[in-house]
């Protein structure tokens, strides 16, 4: 790119032509107070006016996030006019905001509060009428509170970018404008898949996960046997809440922290992941050899399952009937662990720690229950676990590294760990399917062709004993749609497809710690481009460190089948570990 000459605060700089003032200033060492830190495809309207600066050649002050630099431009960021204008912009945003910061779960991560402090917007300068507000707490996964919404539209963009869905949009006009699903419906009454990607980008507390910390507290109070199980992706991100660099695995400290929170047992859902592979691998082999519906598609991601039920009801027979790992493990805890310990399953309370908001919905599904008893009683996100740890006074970084509880389901394979990243379930399944078909382990263990860390489709052809198995991987519904439309048109060449709801898989789930450059001063400038890869690497590293790398070699899995389940896809497995799906109307009749 060509370089051009500009001046910032009177100092000459050379910057790349075509950059916005915000980007150019950042490269020169200035962080202009803004709500987006810098444009990252989530907003391109420049409507919040927080990042106003003076620039020669422009009429009035300009929004630096969208205004491009030009040769000879002189920019003033810190002038009285610019600082006052930015303060007014924030004051105007605050004038229709509920400002109930101490009761807001976003506190500590709120970008609006941050720019308010930065710009000095302390007085209620534009106190006046507030627009009518709406609170949606109906959906199990998500909460929407328009009293905190500043209409920036990031969530609208994210929903479109990640999924091509556009569940959220601007509604009405002027003072009455809100961001909501059509008709100001609840997420529960719209074809929202409750993935929580919108929550990850919301700068305020307008969009949040539906917290279940209260439920966990109540279970402790009631004297239940409270068991916790944590998903693979959680260990790759939880550390970020406690100041660790992105991509630091904190498995041992997480187990230690959960134990100190009072959980009777702390388990790794990796065991459930291994169990899933045994069931799903067997199901795939059956479909391949007995002429079942192909391609088979994974069913671990409840966001994806929601999408399928809303949009591809005709393709539901393609979904594996396997429950997701935490549901399987929950079922085993209640059916097997409880029996072993002479406890009534009704007194067991299973808490799943998930990188996901859709899991909160999944656990409520009627199809997941066994004899009317849910497999899992509460789902908390990675962020909620961090909140519980913080309020308990633990200094996370001083915790020792402790192992998970070892009874019954303590062992796990490296294959289970990589479930947390797009392509991981596929690789884990291939390791086991290859062994089942050939009688020997794949060498090398890894199937690197299916690996990745971003949205987008990957495909691979695996030769197993002379038979070619074609597989494909997609994450984010925008990519998934391409593969699904191929199946619908009868053009799909694949036998096995992995689909994850969130772009990049669970490591980028809607319940993971927020990645906000403004709160991460020690991360590189390009962290928004690299955090998924870093989190993925944390999981692949843990896989490599495991002695057992394939699900079928997990000794406790072998034991579980010998002593309890019988065989994969057997009678008991079907009762406990498999589920069913049903097409749903997106905009159902609201009574």
């Amino acid at each position, binding site marked *: 790119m060509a370089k051009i000459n500009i001046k910032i605060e009177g100092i000459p700089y050379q910057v790349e032509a075509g950059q916005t003032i915000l980007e150019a200033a950042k490269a020169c060492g200035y962080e202009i107070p803004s709500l987006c830190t810098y444009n990252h495809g989530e907003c391109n309207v420049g409507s919040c006016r927080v990042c106003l600066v003076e620039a020669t050649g422009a009429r009035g002050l300009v929004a630096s996030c969208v205004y491009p630099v030009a040769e000879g431009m002189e920019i003033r960021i810190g002038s009285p006019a610019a600082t006052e204008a930015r303060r007014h912009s924030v004051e105007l945003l605050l004038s229709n905001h509920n400002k109930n910061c101490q009761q807001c779960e976003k506190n500590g991560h709120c970008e609006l509060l941050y720019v308010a402090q930065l710009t000095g917007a302390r007085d209620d300068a534009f106190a006046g009428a507030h627009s009518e507000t709406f609170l949606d707490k109906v959906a199990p996964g998500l909460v929407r509170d328009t009293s905190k919404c500043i209409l920036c539209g990031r969530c609208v963009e994210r929903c479109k970018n990640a999924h091509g869905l*556009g569940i959220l949009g601007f*509604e009405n*006009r002027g003072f009455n404008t809100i961001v*909501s*699903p059509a008709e100001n419906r609840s997420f529960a009454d719209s074809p929202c898949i409750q993935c929580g990607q919108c929550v990850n980008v919301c700068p305020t507390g307008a969009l949040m996960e539906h917290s279940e910390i209260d439920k966990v507290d109540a279970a402790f109070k009631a004297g239940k046997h409270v068991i916790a199980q944590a998903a693979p992706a959680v260990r790759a991100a939880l550390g970020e809440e406690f100041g660790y660099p992105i991509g630091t695995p904190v498995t041992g400290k997480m187990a230690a922290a959960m134990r100190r929170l009072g959980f009777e047992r702390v388990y790794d859902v990796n065991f459930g992941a291994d169990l899933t592979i045994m069931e799903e691998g067997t199901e795939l082999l059956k479909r391949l050899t007995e002429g079942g519906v192909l391609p088979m598609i994974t069913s671990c991601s409840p966001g994806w399952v929601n999408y399928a039920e809303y949009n591809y009801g005709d393709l539901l027979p393609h979904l594996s009937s396997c429950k997701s790992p935490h549901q399987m493990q929950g079922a085993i805890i209640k059916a097997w662990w409880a029996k072993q310990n002479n406890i009534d399953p009704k007194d067991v309370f299973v808490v799943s720690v998930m990188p996901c908001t859709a899991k909160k919905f999944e656990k409520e599904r009627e199809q997941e229950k066994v004899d009317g008893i849910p497999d899992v009683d509460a789902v908390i996100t990675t962020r909620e676990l961090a909140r519980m740890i913080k309020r308990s006074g633990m200094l996370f970084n001083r915790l020792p590294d402790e192992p998970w509880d070892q009874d019954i389901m303590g062992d796990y394979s490296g294959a289970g760990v990589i479930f947390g990243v797009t392509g991981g379930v596929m690789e884990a399944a291939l390791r086991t399917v290859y062994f089942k078909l050939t009688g020997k382990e794949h060498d090398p263990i890894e199937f690197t062709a299916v690996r990745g860390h971003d949205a987008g489709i990957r495909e691979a052809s695996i030769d197993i004993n002379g038979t070619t198995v074609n597989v494909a991987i997609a994450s984010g519904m925008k990519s998934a749609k391409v593969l699904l439309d191929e199946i619908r048109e009868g053009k799909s060449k694949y036998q096995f497809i992995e689909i994850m709801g969130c772009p990049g898989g669970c490591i980028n789930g809607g319940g993971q710690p927020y990645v906000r450059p403004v709160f991460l001063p020690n991360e590189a400038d390009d962290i928004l481009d690299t955090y998924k890869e870093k989190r993925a690497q944390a999981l692949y590293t843990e896989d490599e460190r495991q002695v057992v790398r394939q699900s079928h070699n997990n000794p406790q899995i072998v034991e579980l089948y010998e002593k309890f389940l019988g065989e994969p896809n057997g009678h008991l497995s079907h009762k406990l570990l498999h589920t069913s799906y049903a097409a749903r109307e*997106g*905009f159902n009749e609201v009574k």
Partner: protein
Amino acid sequence: MGGLKAEAVAQIKEICGRYKDEKTPLMMILSDIQNEYGYIPLDVQEVVSQETGISVAEIYGVVTFYSFFSLTPKGKYVIGCCLGTACYVKGAQNVIDKFSEILKIKPGETTADGLFTLDALRCIGACGIAPAVTINGTVYPKMSVGQVPDVVAHYVKEAATA
């Protein structure tokens, strides 16, 4: 979408098809549907969404942004009172209040007999003849409160004889 008849779905698809070569066809499609049916309910928007690939939320946003579009059926006669700045200072509020009083409906509502809808419009660009009222495309310039009863009576009579 269950509530729509097959022929209605077909007609909406036909309307969408008219603009399939347009870069931004949404306004034209909605305009045609509004003219055809008098309103654009959610299940119709769902069909438009399927045909155009534009999300329902975005379509809903456009429908609720422009006062020309309506989510509920409009009356036989749509009375649009301009409340733009010029009309307002010339007494448009009194005019719309008078319509409200006679028809016993608030702006945005439709009479129970389905005859009249009263709409408050923001500037219709006819400031020179403020306060301006439009009824099904007919413009009533320099409307006064005193004229309102006669205007209403005229349309009631027209409907009765039609």
